């Protein structure tokens, strides 16, 4: 009897914690979406800010964030995936590879503002790229690398050795084995990691703060050497830096809603890829 009560109590405790977390998440989302709903409309996502940003939309911030994420991805994914392939497929276990691996894990834990400072020193100043979407994208790329390397390596680790032996025994080179069997088989896992990393990068503020994000720009440019607006920074600015904070509050919530939706869509895609892969096996 006592055992039963104990069991029930434990069960309630665990369930309660889970529900509490869900509740908090629900309250946050409900708060943001309910307050932002009045602001979000087609005009809001398709127009420029007007009247000192008290009216109008957030089009340049959306475009800026998309462009930024794009630059981050084309920089971080090839290097990250290549590095993971090297570490998992080629590198022989040694002190050096262990140090490399530990360093990558540590890099993932560094606060993002440090990346911002580093990006400012390296890309903006040393490499003379200026404060631009390119500098910011490269900085975010650096921040994303450890995540992409780690998730890709995990995906590669899950491929059994019998798969590699199959093609090697047919006389395939190691590179052919990786290109034709290992990477295709690990692709869903790699893509999931890449997309989740992208969605994280899209929401970062600190690393782009010093490296290229702008308070306001009055035109959209796809040129990588221009400053840009980004959703997270726009939100930060509307919430704390604006001269009429009370007036722009709905716009801030609207911006938050759009950012959440964008990240949400990316996560759904990642979830879908994982799901599809699982049902195929």
């Amino acid at each position, binding site marked *: 009897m006592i055992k039963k009560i104990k069991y029930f109590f434990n069960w309630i405790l665990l369930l309660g914690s889970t529900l509490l977390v869900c509740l908090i998440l629900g309250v946050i989302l409900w708060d943001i979406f309910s307050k932002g709903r009045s602001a979000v409309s087609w005009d809001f996502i398709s127009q420029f800010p007007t009247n000192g940003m008290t009216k109008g939309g957030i089009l340049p911030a959306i475009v800026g964030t998309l462009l930024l994420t794009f630059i981050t991805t084309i920089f971080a994914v090839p290097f990250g995936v290549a590095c993971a392939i090297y570490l998992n497929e080629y590198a*022989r*276990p040694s002190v050096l590879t262990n140090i490399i691996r530990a360093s990558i894990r540590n890099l993932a834990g560094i606060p993002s503002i440090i990346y911002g400072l580093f990006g400012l020193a390296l890309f903006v100043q040393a490499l003379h790229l200026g404060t631009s979407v390119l500098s910011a994208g490269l900085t975010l790329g650096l921040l994303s690398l450890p995540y992409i390397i780690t998730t890709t390596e995990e995906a590669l680790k899950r491929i059994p*050795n*019998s*798969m*590699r*032996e*199959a*093609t*090697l*025994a*047919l*006389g*395939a*080179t190691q590179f*052919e084995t990786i290109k*034709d*069997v290992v990477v*295709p*088989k690990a692709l869903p896992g790699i893509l999931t990691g890449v997309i989740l990393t992208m969605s994280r990068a899209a929401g970062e503020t600190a690393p782009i703060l010093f490296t290229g994000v702008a308070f306001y720009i009055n035109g959209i440019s796809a040129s990588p050497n221009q400053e840009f607006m980004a959703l997270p920074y726009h939100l930060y600015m509307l919430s704390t830096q604006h001269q009429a904070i009370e007036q722009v509050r709905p716009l801030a919530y609207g911006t938050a809603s759009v950012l959440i939706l964008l990240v949400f869509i990316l996560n759904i895609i990642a979830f879908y890829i994982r799901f599809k892969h699982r049902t195929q096996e």
Partner: protein
Amino acid sequence: MEEIKLSAHNLNLFFGKKQILKNVNIDFIKNQVTSLIGPSGCGKSTLLRTFNRMHDLSPEAKIEGTLKLENLNIYDKKNSVTEIRKRIGMVFQKPNPLPKSIYENLSYALKIHNFPKNEIPQLIEKALKESYLWDEVKDEFKKPAVKLSGGQQQRLCIARTVVLRPEVILMDEPCSALDPISTRKIEDLILILKKDYTIVIVTHNMQQAQRISDKVAFMYLGELIEFNTSENIFKQPQKDLTKNYVNGHFG
């Protein structure tokens, strides 16, 4: 006249400090089936994998001695490992079809070895017929290979090896994951394949070794204890260790 196809001379193999194979000397005769038997951990799979250099993947493996495919030194640096593996094919314990279609599983090896495109379909048909898989898969080439049954997958893996026309086929317990009917099919297949290939097979199954082999090598703790014709090993073993093992006293 018996022609030596594959041989190991004074072979020692170490994994780190541990010696797995101890001074193994063995010759495999062309167009014969040789079974490697012995209790788990005796080094028979390790020996098998030295011939197509599968230990190249393990940095801790160290190999001494001479291994030859006819007159070609298998571990000579100037010989290409991919060329050797093309001539010495391998079938594994667990069926490991590539995550591709049935057809691509067979065409893959031909493509990487640059066989002329127009010859590929005939070569595939021939290999599938040789592996007695043709009738079962000829209408569903596009189907993913993993959808086949375990026995079919293993015959596909044999076909995938045969399609390259190797000279030697190494088999590492090819039936251990299969049911008796599939096992039978593979055994029949091995007896047919030996007309064209030299086959070395690792097996735990004494009946299987008796049914299919011309020669049997008994290994124990990394040493080759006895190597003789199948009949001699099972009927009149020279060593007590061999006798005890084939009679099922240990293993």
